[in-house]
């Protein structure tokens, strides 16, 4: 890393003068990369593949260490303020520390989830953990970078490890396909991003964010075609990584194809890193020309919100559905970016943290329920889950409702903050659009919840009090409900005394409603799936995610203040 730093910051000078290095500023990624290298070395020296448990413990310790260092960084920033280090190549401020902590936590939780997954799939060795840690260090680097080149470096470290992780389970053809798709499109987006850097350099004479801001504030660029083209290309690169429409094409396939723990990791960490870099580039470097980029981000936000919510309605695969929902979430976070204010950044940070917990928790449950082969992700397999595994179903219901924006979860506090940030700058229509898409999104989250809490197999006794689960619907749901839904017209006729025909819009909604519910009903599982075993570590991860989501929903002050405080220490303002 340091060699690259030197190379990038001192291309022009003849003699290489080593800039003073503030080690603390770059310690977390160094810990992760160093730990990964050591783990890889140990794994290659021992004769047999390293035991999964061993690599898990190592990863937990390393990511815990990185988190500890981040706390140290935090106290340093609080005491001495935010500064740039290493010739302005990296910055250590509240913002970067926040994302560093977030990524370290995500790594920790993913290691917990992956343990059970790797054991179940019979994959030994330390490669998974090594790759994940390298990828996480890339995200941290993106958050602390103060130079477009460093951002690119972080982006590539993050992405290349993720490409491999996506294809990690080589027994699944879908994984290979997804990885190839991700790799090719990702390569494209990286090339676009680099070209954006080049154009920006051409327009402003620097790749350093501080110097770009300096240049733009002191000079009026009369023919700004080059600058705008560079900015647009940079935005395209970021939009690809955060999965914003229309750069989202890879998302459903990759989310579906990648091993489930990787999907959760990818959703949380890649979004965090890319959004962090995007926020910093737009505010630090291009804050002066915000009128130029704001409409573009506005458009990205609207498209992501709408498309993510509506397309998710039609998905039958839970992982695909969550992929589209992540696009919708990206739209929400973009609201904070559009605002481009202090409040917007703080809201986006809070949203990223809340989303990290919700999405890793959700994918942890999806991982557990995927069974051996990690392929059991059809919606119908969730039918009656509450009866078989009440605790797991409750946790999933809570996480899904939180994503939908149920009150007293971090999900709704996050939505409230980003929408307020948008309204704060007068983007009321955008806020309204966002909330309406949240309603649409609530529908597909609820669908899963309904399925989980609806009856299990056929022929179960009605009114049985022996059911161990939570809510259980008696079997007339499958029989009577099916008939009822299959003949909506007939039923309407039967209750024809209802004179007032609903408005056209509501009847359209009703029709969609019935079609989707009907599809769910017809999909009644031929056989009741056996309950799955939940590994201890996975249940700890799920418990942590669900618990934090609810706890900080009821007691919002600490997290909101934390995100706020981190933004106060944002550098440069």
């Amino acid at each position, binding site marked *: 890393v340091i060699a690259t730093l030197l190379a990038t910051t001192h291309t022009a000078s003849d003699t290489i003068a080593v800039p003073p290095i503030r080690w603390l500023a770059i310690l977390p990624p160094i810990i992760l990369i160093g730990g990964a290298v050591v783990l890889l070395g140990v794994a290659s020296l021992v004769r047999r593949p390293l035991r999964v448990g061993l690599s898990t413990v190592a990863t937990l310790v390393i990511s815990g260490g990185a988190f500890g260092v981040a706390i140290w960084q935090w106290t340093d920033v609080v005491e001495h303020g935010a500064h740039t280090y290493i010739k302005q190549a990296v910055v250590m401020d509240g913002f970067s520390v926040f994302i560093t902590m977030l990524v370290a936590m995500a790594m920790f939780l993913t290691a917990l989830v992956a343990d059970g997954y790797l054991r179940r799939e019979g994959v030994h060795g330390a490669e998974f953990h090594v790759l994940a840690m390298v990828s996480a260090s890339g995200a941290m680097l993106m958050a602390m970078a103060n130079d477009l080149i460093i951002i690119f470096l972080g982006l590539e470290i993050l992405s290349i490890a993720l490409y491999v992780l996506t294809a990690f389970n080589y027994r699944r053809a879908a994984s290979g396909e997804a990885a190839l798709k991700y790799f090719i499109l990702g390569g494209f987006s990286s090339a676009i991003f680099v070209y954006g850097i080049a154009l920006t350099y051409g327009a402003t004479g620097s790749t350093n964010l501080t110097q770009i801001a300096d240049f733009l504030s002191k000079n009026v660029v009369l023919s700004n075609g080059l600058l705008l083209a560079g900015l647009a290309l940079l935005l395209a690169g970021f939009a690809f990584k955060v999965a914003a429409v229309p750069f989202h094409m890879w998302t459903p396939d990759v989310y579906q194809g990648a091993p489930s723990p990787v999907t959760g990791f990818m959703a949380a960490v890649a979004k965090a890193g890319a959004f962090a870099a995007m926020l910093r580039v737009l505010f630090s470097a291009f804050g002066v020309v915000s009128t130029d980029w704001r409409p573009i981000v506005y458009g990205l936000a609207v498209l992501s919100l709408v498309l993510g919510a509506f397309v998710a309605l039609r998905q039958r695969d839970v992982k695909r559905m969550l992929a589209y929902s992540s696009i919708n979430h990206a739209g929400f976070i973009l609201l904070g970016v559009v605002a481009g204010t202090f409040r917007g950044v703080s809201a986006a940070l809070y949203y990223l943290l809340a989303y990290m917990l919700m999405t890793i928790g959700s994918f942890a449950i999806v991982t557990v329920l995927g069974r051996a082969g990690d392929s059991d992700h059809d919606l119908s397999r969730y039918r009656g889950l509450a009866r078989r595994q009440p605790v797991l179903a409750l946790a999933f219901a809570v996480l899904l409702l939180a994503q939908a924006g149920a009150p007293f979860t971090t999900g709704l506090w996050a939505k409230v903050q980003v929408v307020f940030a948008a309204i704060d700058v007068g983007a009321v229509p955008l806020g309204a659009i966002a909330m*309406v898409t949240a309603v649409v999104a609530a529908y597909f989250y609820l669908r899963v919840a309904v399925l989980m809490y609806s009856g299990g197999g056929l022929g179960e006794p009605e009114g049985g009090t022996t059911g161990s689960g939570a809510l259980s619907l008696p079997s007339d749901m499958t029989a009577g409900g099916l008939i009822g839904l299959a003949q909506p017209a007939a039923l309407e006729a039967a209750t024809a005394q209802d004179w007032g025909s609903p408005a056209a819009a509501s009847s359209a909604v009703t029709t969609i409603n019935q079609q989707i519910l009907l599809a769910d009903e017809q999909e009644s599982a031929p056989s009741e799936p056996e309950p799955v075993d939940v590994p201890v570590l996975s249940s700890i991860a799920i418990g942590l995610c669900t618990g934090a989501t609810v706890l900080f929903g009821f007691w919002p002050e600490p997290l909101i*203040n934390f995100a706020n405080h981190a933004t106060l220490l944002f550098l440069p303002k």
Partner: protein
Amino acid sequence: MRHEVPFLTLLILIPAIAAAVLGLLGLDRRMHRELTYALALLASLATLGFAIAVLVVMKVSDGGFQLVSDHDYTGTALGVHWYLGVDGISIFLVLLTAVLFPLAIILGRNRENARVYFAWMLLLEASVLGSFLSLDLIVFFFMFELTLVPSYFIIAGWGHQRRAYAAIKFFLYTFLGSAFLLVGILALAFIHQSQFGYLTFSLGPLMQTHLTGTQGVLLFLAFTAAFAVKAPLFPLHTWSPDAYTEAPEEGSVVLSGVLAKIGTYGIIRFDLSLFPQATRTLAPILLTLAVIGIVYGAIVACAQRDLKRLVTYSSLAQIGFIALGTIALSTQGLAGGVLLMLNHGLIVGALFILIGFIYQRRGTWQTGEMRGLQKAAPVMAGVFTVVMMASIGVPGLNGFVSEFLVLSGTFITHRWWAVVAVLGVIVAAIYLLWAYQQVFHGPPREADEKTRDLGLLERAVMAPLIILIVFLGVYPKPVLDRINPSVNQLIAHVESTTGHSQPPVAVKGVEGVK
């Protein structure tokens, strides 16, 4: 005005904690059945006790918010406060909630999977009480939204044939409405911040915000969208026949008795306080919709052969009356509206409970399948008669007092709307008497003769409702004494903001005319 005992916070916390305990402890063995029931009943009765304590502690003649508790909730960054308070408008809705929920829990005793059912019920009670008590708009919004989750699961989990469809329809309609509410709240807070320089979501400071005409109207529409769906007001009512019919009986009791009142309460508490000018501007449209709702609800109710749907549509008409009195912006009208919320809650709750009793015995709500139940079940017929008469608005029972106030209050300010709305009262008599005749009169058939009369527990459940219905009909003064100061204060606020007063007759009576 801080009190030693945080009554209002406890009112919300008791059912919420009980819900959490029931929901998370795995008391699912048969021997635990009685325990869960006892716990749920105890929690709801304790809530009732606290609600009565609040009524006792409150000062009668004070129109402002009492027993206020105000704590920082999210830190200064977001400025949300845990800000609760009660006044003459909300206290009786709190009491209504606290009365109806224990009854619903008693009635739900034998439900399948009772533990979870009670947990949802208690969570629903907590969120409803929270909606009536919170004076911070964000906390109100959270509570308002929270009511959706338990009611959704109650309908979807324990409802009748088409429950999945009804539950989703209910959820989406209400959620869509509240999406606009959130945007409205945030926009209002933003406007306030730009004028006063600090961020708050508390009702009091937000009432000072200066709004231009367009801003006021848009915000009013955003707020009212949520409330009108929840109430439901015509033409946003289309979810309610499905939801009320498919919900389990106790679910219908609380849905129509209490949850619907959050909508009308929201109009009074938030629309009138925050956007008086916009309310005035849009009053003709809203009054027209209310009157259409009254007449339409009554006419459609006439055509129902299904008791549950009949009560649903009569409920739509009654909600129309509440809205009519509220929007008329006169003292009598508003006081009548507030009183009608209480009365309608009692009446419709009693009606749905009675329909539940009939359904338990006969497995149907179709009026055509029953005849002459009076003979086999005289007590049930008697109770039904009293409740029905109250719903029609017979003097001496509670319905009359509030309907009279609403109509006279509306007549003072908006004469012709009141004239048309009276039609609704007449038609109400027609459909309720028809239904009563079909079910209870006539020669009984074999199945009808075997219908059991009300048991002891069932009579015990009906007794408090009947007592309240009669008491409020004969002697509504104690209630009106507490409602009126708050209503006067609200009307005074509206008049000072809009600069438009109600006719003197509304304040001074006959003296004002001379």
